[in-house]
């Protein structure tokens, strides 16, 4: 089973190919806003280097965010089209889950900057030894003010939490001030890595867990600003 992983949700542009548990290759490049120019050329290159053709793919995994709105659409459009053209299954995976699955520790807090003193966070734990899962979700991805995190994670204040991702030092300081026991993840786990996405994707697809490509969309976690403004002015709808 050959799975392609595509991630353009953050500054990191990630591409990986996993073949039945074996990583064939991986790109992780911090490119910032060049994803549109670079994604397809890099995909062509990884295929050429590994002597693979697009039609050899058995499935695709794509990061669904949160992240840059435009970046998310680039990756998801690509995954949808591959799914449609080759009739292969596609699985969308939250960016924070990819980050957490690539880190170590019993409890993992994954973060992405949401600007203005806010972060996108998700909270995970190491699954039981006999589980097929790579990661177990406790709190799904959401946006929160950094100052509110101690309250959100209150039930876990006695556990050691590994913090990964953007704003980890800032968040760590706030949690420490509330007497949490924290640890920082290694720098390479601060980014969603394409190989981890490929591993998660293969695992989901193997178990028949795929998304409907017609319904698949980014986890924006934020309404368009115009919608927010409109609702503030006129109420909902």
């Amino acid at each position: 089973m050959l799975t392609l992983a595509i991630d353009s949700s953050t500054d990191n542009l990630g591409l990986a190919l996993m073949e039945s548990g074996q990583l064939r290759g991986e790109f992780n490049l911090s490119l910032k806003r060049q994803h549109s120019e670079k994604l397809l050329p890099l995909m062509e290159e990884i295929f050429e280097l590994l002597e693979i053709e697009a039609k050899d793919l058995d499935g695709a995994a794509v990061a669904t965010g949160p992240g840059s709105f435009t970046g998310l659409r680039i990756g998801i459009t690509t995954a949808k089209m591959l799914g449609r053209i080759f009739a292969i299954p596609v699985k969308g995976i939250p960016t924070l889950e990819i980050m957490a699955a690539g880190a170590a520790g019993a409890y993992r807090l994954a973060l992405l900057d949401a600007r203005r003193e806010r972060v996108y966070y998700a909270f995970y734990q190491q699954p039981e030894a006999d589980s097929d899962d790579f990661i177990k979700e406790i709190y799904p991805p959401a946006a929160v003010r950094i100052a509110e995190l101690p309250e959100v994670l209150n039930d876990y204040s006695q556990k050691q939490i590994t913090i990964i991702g953007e704003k980890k030092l800032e968040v760590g300081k706030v949690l420490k001030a509330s007497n949490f026991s924290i640890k920082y993840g290694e720098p390479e786990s601060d980014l969603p890595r394409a190989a981890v996405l490929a591993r998660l994707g293969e695992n989901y697809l193997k178990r028949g867990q795929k998304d409907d490509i017609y319904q698949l969309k980014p986890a924006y976690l934020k309404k368009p600003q115009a919608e927010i403004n409109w609702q503030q002015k006129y109420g909902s709808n």
Partner: protein
Amino acid sequence: MGVEKLKYKDKLKNKNEDIYILALESSCDETAAAVNKNGLEVMANVVSSQVEIHKKFGGVVPEIASRKHLELLLPVIDQALAEAGIKFEDLDAVAATSGPGLVGGLLVTLTAAKTISLALNIPLIGVNHIAGHIYANFIANPEIKKPLLCLTISGGHTDLLYFEDLRGYQILGRTIDDAAGEAFDKISRFLGLGYPGGPAIEKAAQTGNEEAIDFPRADLGKSYNFSFSGLKTSVMNYVNNEKQRGNEINTSDLAASFQKAVVDSLASNLLQAVEEYKVESVVLSGGVAANQRLRSYLEEKLEKYNLKLYYPPLELCTDNAAMIGAVAYYQYLERDFAPLSISADPSLKL
């Protein structure tokens, strides 16, 4: 471009073979897919409009449009392929608008087209949206004779183009400052007539005397370029002077005189080119092409050359992908392919 040509060299077709192109468009608030056979033969033309969604905001919201394009992408492609009765494997090339337009929206179909190109190993063609609107004329009126002149006039463009055939064009002149539609908008706003300015000025002008005020026509010598900023200043000065003198302004006369000055400027370059280039037809495109005074004046002037004036029918004036597919066909024949690294250009010029 050379690399792309080599990449597909074993499978490229020539003019005497049937060429099928899937074209995609999402530059503003329509998500569209079309299948064209040999350029002007439209096998399917699917347009999903978001007009209703944006209405409550009083204009197109780029982020909302982009989100909607992503949702509508597969349904419009599926419908276009189904209506055309062809499969992905039958396609000879894939095309998408690369600009101008809203960058977030453009990137949805441009990325989709890149993926199709890579997946099927067929050429990718990046098309200029403005060229698309010109080629909408050729779809609607396949009898248009070449060579021809085309005047593209809108809020962002004032270009005079010469087409030897449909494979490409030469830009004879363009505006050196404001576009014609922009001049209409600015003067309409200045006179409090509303937006968009073209229809507003035209309406006000209906009951006016177009010879009431003698506004200047820009004279750029032998060049085919246009200029409307001097005219704009002159209208504003006229209004301010009259107000200072305590005179009431006749908006209808003012609108009619201004409109005639724009029409004269556009017509004089076009007619000068008609004399020089010995064309068989004249084509208008762009929003300002809807101006009735411009049409009637040009029709009258072109009669003596025995030339017919063409303009696009209303249904092809809205954004669609068939017009993108038409341009793409001629780019295909020229082997004008885009690399997978092509990006959307929100202010792409002709």
